[in-house]
């Protein structure tokens, strides 16, 4: 990776998401902090990319068209945020006593170890022969999901499980990032994205901690420490959320498990406190965003929306709340229907 690649990575993978996050959070009048901006910047990016890319993939159009439209969309949203002067107002809440400072140190160290793991260690996963190679082939051929990942040959239809990737084109998104930064997709997926995704994991749990331990800085930090510890010592089977977070975070389904589910939980907590328009919009963005990484995101987000909507509707005696969340599931149903037609049709 050259110096130019590094600069482009900083711009595309850090600056751009923060600007997008600022725009979304400012529009919804949600307090703009740097961690929230980064998280919601990525969720916005994923949601916009999902909406743009799926129709073009379905119509077997060139990858470059998606790249062009996505760039225009992102620049427009970022420009909106800048024009409206939606900027980060706070980085993080500073500790206010000695015990909080000590626990903050341990929490930071725990998060740093998790992030460092993604850089220092590697894990060979056979599923990458599809997920990573899809991204490599998209960048190489400008054809989206129309290359046999096993042989490298051109194909004319979305074969087998590749049909699922049409409605959840995570590989195309990674190819997009590679196109903008000049970083090869394999390096992007294995080396560049995992530390950023792990930072997003830490941010989500930090935000949850703020909800669960409001005004208790030390306890928030202790919560983060135990989250990190349970991830590091949670390798009870190859199936668990902790395992997927630690060893294959770059794969779409792991991103759903590690970031998507906790993020939705945090948003549901906020909605339970205050069923305001802003919170509904953030949930909608998160729901669409989770359709990008994996078909599991479509299914899991839809299931959570349906059940949380039902339960909260009864608790709050608000059918409006229930119906709004159920209405958001239309997105998920549409993508599931489309995926089924592609695979079985």
């Amino acid at each position: 990776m050259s110096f130019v690649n590094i600069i482009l990575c900083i711009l595309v993978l850090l600056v751009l998401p923060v600007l997008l996050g600022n725009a979304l959070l400012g529009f919804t009048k949600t307090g703009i902090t740097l961690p929230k901006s980064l998280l919601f910047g990525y969720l916005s990016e994923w949601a916009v990319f999902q909406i743009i890319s799926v129709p073009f993939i379905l119509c077997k159009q060139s990858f470059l068209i998606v790249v062009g439209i996505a760039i225009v969309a992102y620049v427009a949203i970022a420009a909106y945020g800048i024009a409206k002067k939606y900027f980060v107002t706070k980085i993080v809440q500073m500790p206010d006593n000695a015990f909080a400072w000590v626990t903050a140190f341990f929490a930071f160290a725990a998060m740093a170890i998790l992030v460092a793991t993604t850089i220092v260690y590697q894990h060979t996963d056979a599923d990458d022969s599809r997920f990573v190679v899809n991204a490599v082939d998209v960048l190489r051929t400008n054809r989206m999901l129309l290359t046999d990942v096993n042989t490298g040959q051109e194909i004319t239809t979305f074969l087998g499980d590749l049909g699922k990737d049409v409605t959840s084109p995570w590989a195309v998104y990674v190819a997009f990032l590679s196109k903008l930064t000049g970083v090869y997709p394999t390096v992007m997926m294995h080396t560049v994205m995992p530390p950023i995704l792990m930072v997003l994991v830490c941010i989500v749990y930090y935000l949850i901690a703020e909800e669960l331990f409001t005004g208790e800085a030390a306890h928030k930090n202790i919560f983060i420490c135990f989250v990190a510890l349970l991830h590091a010592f949670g390798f009870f089977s190859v199936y668990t959320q902790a395992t997927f977070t630690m060893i294959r975070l770059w794969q779409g389904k792991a991103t759903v498990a590690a970031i998507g589910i906790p993020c939705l939980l945090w948003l549901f907590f906020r909605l339970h406190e205050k069923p305001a328009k802003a919170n509904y919009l953030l949930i909608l963005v998160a729901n669409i965003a989770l359709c990008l990484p994996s078909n599991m995101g479509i299914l899991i987000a839809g299931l959570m929306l349906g059940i949380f909507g039902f339960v909260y509707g009864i608790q709050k005696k608000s059918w409006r709340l229930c119906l709004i969340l159920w209405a958001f599931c239309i997105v998920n149903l549409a993508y599931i229907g489309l995926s089924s037609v592609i695979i079985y049709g």
Partner: protein
Amino acid sequence: MREAAKTILNYIKDYYPDRMYLLVFLFALCYIFITNKKLRNKLIVPMLVIMLVVINPVLYKLVFRKLIYWRFFWIFSDVLIIAYVITDLVRKSDKVWVKICISCFCAAVIALSGANIFRSGVFVKAQNKEHLDAHTKAVCDAMLAISDEPKCIVPLELTWEARQYNGDIQMMYGRNADGYINRVDPACDLVQESIAAGVGFDYVFTMAGMHGYPFVVTLAWKQPEEALVSKFGYTKCFEDEMYALYYSKAVDEGTNNKKALLIRYHVKDCIFYTLDTNDAFVIIGGDDCMDKGLLRAVIRSHNNHVDTWYLLNEEASEGEFFDICAKPEGAGIDNSKYLSEVTDFRAEEIEALFDGDNKDYYINYLQPEDDSKLLLELGL
């Protein structure tokens, strides 16, 4: 219903093989349910409803068994719930030293009784910026030093990473667990099996030469004999502790002598033949084969093109041939005709060529002489 419940239980056992961890998680759920009304409403009640929906034999039978079921367990968020309960226990006391003691005690319990991922063997130190095996990179670099778009036959383990390293690498087969992408030509499957077993290299190199794969990679400890390699015009051009790479310039340039290759396929109830020559690819039989996708896979491995398909069953009106004609999906068949229209050579005579072979095996092959009756009759 009982079957479904049993299946669900097995999934739970596989997901949470450590019963203590599962008990701790269930205890944490109960703890929050009893002690924290707000969080009960916000998190635990919806989570319990989700559990009722997911861990449900009726819904499993109707819906979940068609999906990757255990991934729905991620919603249960055991890490979040257990971490919250531990922190809540810590904050019960106002004294800092008590908080520290409880925290350290719980951390020690987790560290001593948990499953340390760093000692599990799933991680190795990063070997390069791609985070791929160093041997993969080395053998791929060796191929790319000779050719910009190397076509190669490789061991199955290498198929996981070779195309991750460089998408210009083309392989005869890849990881296709349970045919999740598409069906694989059984003749290519046999190549992969031969490489894995370290036997049958004459078949491997025959297929490599016929299909135009100038690079063949074997496992370093299962290499073919030098004499055999030379017979096919290959030379060893790279070797390390893991892999050995063989290359043929003649195959790369297409100047190798491609002796005709007749393959007999016997897959379930389907018996048919393919004949590869320097100039053509021909299928004989398989027109009434009902094994969906089999002949498509065979055609796909020949650049999705058949020069002539000789049909054997004049009374058949359904089968793979008819499916492919109705819905080609990119497959091209230049000509099709009944074998009986062209020659007196009968299927029984082709079958007799394989007398002496183990016909229970799914692939048999031989290389007819240039002046053999079969080639002459078919004008090849």
